């Protein structure tokens, strides 16, 4: 039986979070009342003209540089002509032959080894409006608020060989993009969107198979599922003697299958030509260099640094760098507390748990790095137990209260006073002679029972380590 190889290329559209739209001064904002962030320019009214938002070009350069692309020194815009109600001018201003960036790459891990995925190009363009299908009135409603939102489209080479690679590429790409702080990268709000070009070919064949373009992929896992479905479909078609038709398919998440889109346009003949209303943009090499210098530290570099500078495991560092705010938080803590492993454990454990349970970002929790360090220190010096500290964390993230203040308020400082604890231990030893005998005859696990009783007597405030010590000492000297 023929073995097939999967070939995938991804097109990622990213909305850039500039203050205003790409060609006019309307607010670039999600969620406003329909047709309120619009003006004659983005409505495409006759006689209006586009003027490029300076920041869009800057953001485009950032994205290009972060993806190891070369930045074109000559950049221009072109018109892509087609009719659709979400496109008020009847053409989209995009970039055809001189995009902002080209020829980059992104490395992903495949079976523990780095694999380089080529990035063909990244180009700037304007987003279209939103169509609302009104089934009650059997019509379509058009909201142009989104029209003119700046987009960058990142096109990968067909270098991906499985849905997992596609998933990992997207995850890696999103992480880099989130570091640049040029987009919300939020698939739910549509600020990050992905189309997948999928084909299969007999293993060993050089020529690419006929591809299908998958659209309506609303999450990375949907991308994965849709590709798996499509690969299976194409394999079945070919194995049963059929051939693949080049077409656009919509992913139906609920039904878990792709649906053929009825062709809206007789052919994709976009009649690109240079946009006469915008002049070319010349980007000098020193401008590119300055931009390169101003890029933030990117995830891969941060990972390496965390491993080497803080002696973290790749696993721990890998979790920290998934979220820039976690990484920054970690570094601030590390300045005032030497045990970086312990900090990482706290962040990657209880703090992430708080974030996930509350569905909040780190910056939305009322936790300062100093307060966390204080909390860790109080566990270490025996003031509170580890369990009590985790409970305290839940209070801190809500109230922003200082750890020491909370410890005092709640009266949960551990009893470490030797005399008090020794008294309790002696009482318990006297009351539980049977257990003492068991321990002395070798059943050391019974010690846990005694410690538990002691904790009960102190309402959990006793330092369990200390209790353990005292019990052991007393039993051995009995």
């Amino acid at each position, binding site marked *: 039986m023929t073995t097939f190889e999967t070939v995938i290329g991804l097109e990622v559209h990213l909305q850039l979070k500039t203050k*205003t739209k790409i060609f006019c001064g309307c607010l670039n904002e999600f969620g406003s009342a*329909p047709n309120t962030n619009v003006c004659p320019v983005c*409505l495409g009214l006759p006689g209006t003209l586009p003027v*490029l938002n300076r920041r869009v070009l800057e953001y485009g350069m950032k994205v290009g540089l972060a993806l190891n692309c070369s930045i074109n020194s000559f950049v221009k815009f072109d018109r892509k002509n087609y009719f659709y109600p979400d496109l008020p001018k009847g053409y989209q201003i995009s970039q055809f032959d001189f995009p902002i960036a080209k020829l980059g790459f992104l490395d992903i891990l495949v079976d523990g080894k780095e694999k380089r995925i080529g990035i063909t190009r990244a180009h700037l363009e304007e987003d279209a409006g939103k169509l609302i299908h009104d089934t009650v009135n059997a019509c379509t409603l058009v909201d142009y608020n989104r029209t003119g939102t700046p987009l960058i489209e990142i096109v990968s080479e067909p270098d991906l060989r499985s849905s997992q690679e596609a998933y990992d590429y997207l995850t890696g790409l999103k992480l880099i993009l989130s570091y640049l702080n040029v987009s919300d990268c939020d698939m739910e709000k549509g600020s990050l969107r992905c189309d997948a070009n999928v084909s299969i070919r007999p293993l060993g064949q050089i020529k690419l198979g006929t591809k299908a373009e998958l659209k309506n992929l609303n999450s990375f896992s949907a991308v994965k599922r849709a590709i798996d479905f499509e690969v299976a479909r194409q394999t079945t078609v070919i194995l049963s003697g059929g051939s693949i038709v080049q077409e656009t398919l919509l992913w139906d998440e609920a039904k878990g299958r792709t649906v053929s889109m009825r062709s809206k346009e007789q052919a994709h003949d976009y009649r690109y030509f240079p946009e006469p209303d915008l002049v070319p943009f010349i980007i000098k090499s020193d401008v590119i260099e300055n931009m390169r210098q101003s890029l933030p530290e990117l995830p891969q570099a941060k990972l390496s640094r965390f491993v080497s500078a803080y002696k973290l495991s790749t696993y721990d560092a890998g979790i920290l760098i998934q979220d820039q705010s976690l990484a920054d938080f970690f570094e601030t803590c590390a300045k005032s507390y030497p045990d970086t492993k312990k900090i990482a454990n706290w962040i990657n454990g209880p703090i992430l748990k708080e974030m996930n349970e509350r569905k909040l970002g780190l910056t939305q929790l009322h936790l300062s790095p100093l307060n966390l360090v204080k909390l860790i220190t109080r566990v270490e010096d025996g003031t509170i137990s580890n369990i009590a500290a985790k409970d305290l964390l839940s209070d801190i993230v809500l109230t922003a209260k200082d750890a020491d203040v909370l410890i005092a308020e709640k009266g949960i400082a551990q009893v470490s006073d030797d005399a008090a604890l020794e008294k309790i231990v002696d009482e318990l030893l006297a009351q539980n002679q049977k257990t003492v005998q068991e321990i002395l005859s070798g059943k050391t696990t019974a010690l846990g029972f005694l410690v538990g009783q002691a904790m009960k007597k102190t309402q959990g405030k006793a330092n369990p380590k200390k209790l353990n010590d005292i019990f052991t000492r007393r039993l051995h000297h009995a």
Partner: protein
Amino acid sequence: MTSDANIISFKKRDEMITRETVNYISGLAKLHINEVQAQKFAGDLEAILHYVEKLNSLDVSQVKPTSHVLDMENVFRDDTVKPSLSQEQALAFSVEKLNGAYKVPKVIE
């Protein structure tokens, strides 16, 4: 002014403008045209394209295209907010509106 090499490299328009071409173009341009108009446009386009073929006698292999007649570059606006239209103003000139939006025939059949 002419260069044989260039004439050869130029894709010669060997066919007349056919009805199929007219239909393809009117489809792209979203213009409904009837049989009579299609005949007329085929003839007109043929005549005009025949006329513009005179450009083929020029050697332009070493010539850069002009998209912008004056040397201009790097014209930007700053990322500052300008007032938008109100919803009422935005829909004042609409053909049809509903619930604050422009209303069109249903897009998905």
